[in-house]
């Protein structure tokens, strides 16, 4: 029973949701909607527990004086400050924390969004560095081709009249060989997801088993 019940619940739930999409029966659609709502509620509760995990994991590193503990302390303080500000502002009414002038939004936009933009801006430099490193570590024709395409793609986006002839070639590369390869990869991924789902549906893939 210990092994059969979780498997039966998983398979039964998956079949209800699957047939709710494939067969337009009102009962199935209602059941699917109820199960989806339960999942959303469970996800919201998981977020609360996850925030507690963030605080506990970082506080433990501060307590033990582990390497980089100062950044863990900043993390804990940031979580507590945002929680406190959000709770106090929401006491005035839920929409308040979502208004652009609320302190929650100001802190989020000024610190979190700005930090994300700074991190994202470094990606192109890291990509070029990785492409060069790839040529050093795996010197084969595919690495050479990869580096050439990366540099070509970056150059072709420069808004100079001298570069304009390259832009047509860039568009062709993106629309024909790159698109063909991308579609092939995505079809492979889709088939793999289909088969993985079948393994969950038939109970052979059981992430909940002992």
């Amino acid at each position: 029973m210990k092994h059969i019940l979780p498997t039966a619940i998983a398979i039964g739930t998956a079949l209800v949701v699957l047939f709710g999409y494939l067969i337009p029966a009102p009962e199935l659609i209602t059941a699917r909607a109820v199960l989806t709502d339960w999942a959303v509620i469970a996800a919201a509760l998981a977020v609360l527990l996850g925030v507690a995990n963030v605080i506990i994991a970082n506080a433990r590193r501060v307590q033990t004086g582990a390497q980089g503990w100062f950044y863990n302390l900043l993390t804990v303080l940031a979580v507590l400050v945002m929680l406190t500000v959000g709770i106090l502002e929401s006491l005035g009414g839920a929409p308040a924390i979502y208004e652009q002038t609320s302190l929650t939004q100001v802190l989020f936009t000024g610190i979190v969004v700005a930090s994300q933009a700074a991190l994202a801006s470094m990606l192109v430099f890291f990509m070029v560095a990785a492409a060069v490193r790839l040529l050093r570590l795996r010197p084969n024709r595919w690495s050479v081709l990869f580096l050439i395409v990366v540099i070509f793609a970056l150059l072709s986006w420069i808004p100079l009249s001298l570069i304009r002839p390259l832009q047509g070639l860039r568009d062709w590369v993106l629309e024909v060989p790159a698109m063909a390869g991308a579609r092939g990869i995505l079809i492979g991924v889709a088939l793999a997801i289909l088969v993985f789902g079948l393994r969950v549906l038939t109970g052979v893939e059981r992430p909940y088993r002992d």
Partner: protein
Amino acid sequence: MMFELTLLLVAFAIFVFLALLARRGLKPALRPLEAYNQLDALVGQAVESGGRVHIALGPNSLTNEDAATTLAGLAMLELVTDSAHVSDLTPVATSGDATTWFVLGDTMLRVYRRRDLNEKFQTVMPRLVALDPITYAGGISSLMTNESIRTNIAMGSFGSELMLITESASRRGILQIVGSDRLDAQAVAYASSRYPLLGEEFYMARAYLSDTPSAIAGAATEDILRWILIALIIGGTILTSLGLVN
């Protein structure tokens, strides 16, 4: 809906047939994948050097369309945790989603429970780093600095922010196996990791690492479905070019 249902039924029939054959010992040969071939060696290097293994499951959730990718990552997490259970420094698993984080701990605890090593499991082994992909990647970068990470395994629905993780690992000489179901991250994986997992290779962990008959049957099913689709595409193109169908 008829096409989807037909495809599902055909896939189911092929899978069941191949799974029954595989259970009788008739397993198809799988093409070698360097990432899975090297996994035990990479985990062993981390264990022997007194370091940790880090498994990053990415920002994907269990409650949306990324669920299959999350489950594939959890399968890899279970296998890697089992390989690394002898390490003095326990492996660390991170997620950028609260529902996935919830299951990380359960997956790792089950491995230690199966090995009768319940006391080795710590509640800080599974960690929720951030709820945003870029912030998650930034958090992983600092984790690799401070937690004696020797081997990094990143398998999830990463985007181009994966570059932040792999670059941070590369600078510290951390060996990596990297995979994602998204195209931009696969390009990053190819450029920055010696052992990338591209496309459907991501979902084949159990077939390659545990030799489970049903997993191998799944890999073979996917290959057969791919050939069927290729035949349909080529046949449809020819018929359309000849004007026989619209």
